């Protein structure tokens, strides 16, 4: 079983401290873990530290996987290259693996990831012709085509319509269940978190305030602390927990 543990992760840009003493218990694979926090709380920096793109203090411990099994999907992917969707996913598969020739099984894995995220019909489209939501789906497919065991995704659903958000999160859940991968998703929509994620990490001003089962982490008290928003948790007609936002905790001075 794959687990990921953060041990006192710290990071700074110049003199500015971005992350301090960020620790979690072992995060289990097979389910989705949400990373929540206000803008500039340090979410992307935490991802870059875990992905090894940035130096700092502390350690990331992996069991059942190595650093090579990790894939990170940053928030922005340039889509100006003259590549088709299919080519861009082959690129994600072959970069690092090497070799110019493609085997039948490699093509099959490209096909299966396209299918999983519902973009097989876009295979021959040029990247610059895609809409924002399509780009995001392609970006997710690029990230998962190598079947990584540790996955970090920075806002994977921000450009998707309501139905596609639901569909993509379901596909990510089934990927996690199938591969046992540790998957950490930075998400802004707390209802998505409650619906799709088993566990959650709450980050505020570079510190981890809480981590654990999503419903235990996302308490009205914590939401108020992170976002300054008054809220309560209720259930939808199908029994899903959902967050009702009442408004700013302290009315902002006009």
């Amino acid at each position, binding site marked *: 079983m794959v687990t990921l543990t953060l041990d006192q992760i710290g990071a700074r840009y110049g003199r500015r401290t971005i992350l301090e003493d960020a620790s979690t218990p072992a995060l289990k694979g097979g389910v989705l873990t949400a990373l929540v926090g206000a803008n500039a709380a340090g979410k992307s920096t935490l991802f870059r530290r875990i992905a090894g793109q940035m130096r700092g203090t502390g350690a990331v411990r992996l069991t059942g996987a190595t650093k090579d099994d990790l894939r990170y999907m940053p928030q922005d992917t340039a889509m100006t290259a*003259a590549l088709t969707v299919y080519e861009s996913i082959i690129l*994600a598969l072959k*970069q690092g693996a090497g070799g110019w020739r493609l085997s039948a099984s490699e093509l099959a894995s490209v096909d299966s990831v396209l299918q999983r995220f519902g973009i097989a019909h876009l295979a021959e489209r040029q990247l610059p012709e895609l809409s924002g939501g399509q780009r995001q789906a392609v970006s997710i497919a690029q990230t998962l085509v190598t079947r990584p065991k540790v996955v970090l995704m920075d806002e994977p659903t921000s450009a998707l319509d309501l139905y596609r958000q639901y569909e993509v999160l379901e*596909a990510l859940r089934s990927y996690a269940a199938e591969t046992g991968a540790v998957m950490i998703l930075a998400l802004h929509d707390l209802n998505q978190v409650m619906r799709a994620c088993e566990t959650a990490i709450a980050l505020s001003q570079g510190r981890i305030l809480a981590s654990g089962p999503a419903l235990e982490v996302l308490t009205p008290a914590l939401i108020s602390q992170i976002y300054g928003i008054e809220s309560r948790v209720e259930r939808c007609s199908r029994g899903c927990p959902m967050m009702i936002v009442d408004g700013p905790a302290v009315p902002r001075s006009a």
Partner: protein
Amino acid sequence: MTALSLMSSSENAKSYRTLTARRIAVLGGLLALLVLSVAVDVSLGPARYPLPDVLRTLFMPSSADLQMRVVIWDIRMPMALLAVTVGASLSLAGAQMQTILANPLASPFTLGLSAAASFGAAIAMVLGVALFPAAIALMVPINAFAMAMAASLLIFGLSTLRGVTVETIILLGIALVFSFNAALALLQYFASEQALSAVVFWTMGSLTKATWGKVAVTAIILAVCAPLFARRAWALTAVRLGETRAAAMGVPVKRLRLETLFLVSLLAAVPVSFVGTIGFIGIVGPHVARLLLGEDQRFFLPGAMLSGAAILSATSVLSKAILPGAVLPIGIITALVGVPFFAALIMTKGRKSW
């Protein structure tokens, strides 16, 4: 997931194979065009020889008469082949500059290498100063090479500094163009009439000083650089998805950018020092390759070399054919014919990618 995607997915691998086959065919077509153009290039010139005689001189040199042998083998062949190696080098240099700087306007021409080379050559022609006195006979190309290399090393050095972005590198390159052009203008202002015309002619760009030695040097540099780029084909393609994304795919972006800038400097500085300013190839070649083949470097890399070589070779043919009996400076033809052709190409076939 949806019925539509299920249906088309099995077809996707097949159409990708078709696409690959088509791209290989395009590369073959470019190669055929290049060979044809070189053949025409060799058979054209101020002295008019019938085609059978040219072919006989090429394939059975011993049976041809001496004058024709000298014209074909020592004058036309080096010129025709230098067009190929220079075209391929400048186009490859431009392609990789555009790739690592994420900018469609990057080329040896726009980043100041050509301007620096012109200035170096002018120092030799106007002031008679050899930057390396040991090689006084090759004063002009060596000065040009030294200045072009200095300019690219300046860009290279600056890009190693912390916090320097791609935009900074490009802006510095543009600043270099203006600085070297100003310095060149100053030299021209004080130059004697004879030196002035030499400088002006040099900056027009010309293949007429081609020798087998120059062909060999440019070919060797190309033969060293191209495989080094080929080994980095996937990483270079990944860089086009943006720095963050490429890094997330395990590409050491900074190191790759430095290695590429260094190779590109070599690749651009030498040809420019031999033939003067034909920088436009560095923009057109890669764009033609991109339109025909996309940016998967497995195809884009050979494609940029072939299209650059074919375009410069065709331009060499034109420079002889426009005014019978005269060889116009190829740099002028590249711009005069190349620019409208290029504009038409990007306006009509332009995709949303650059």
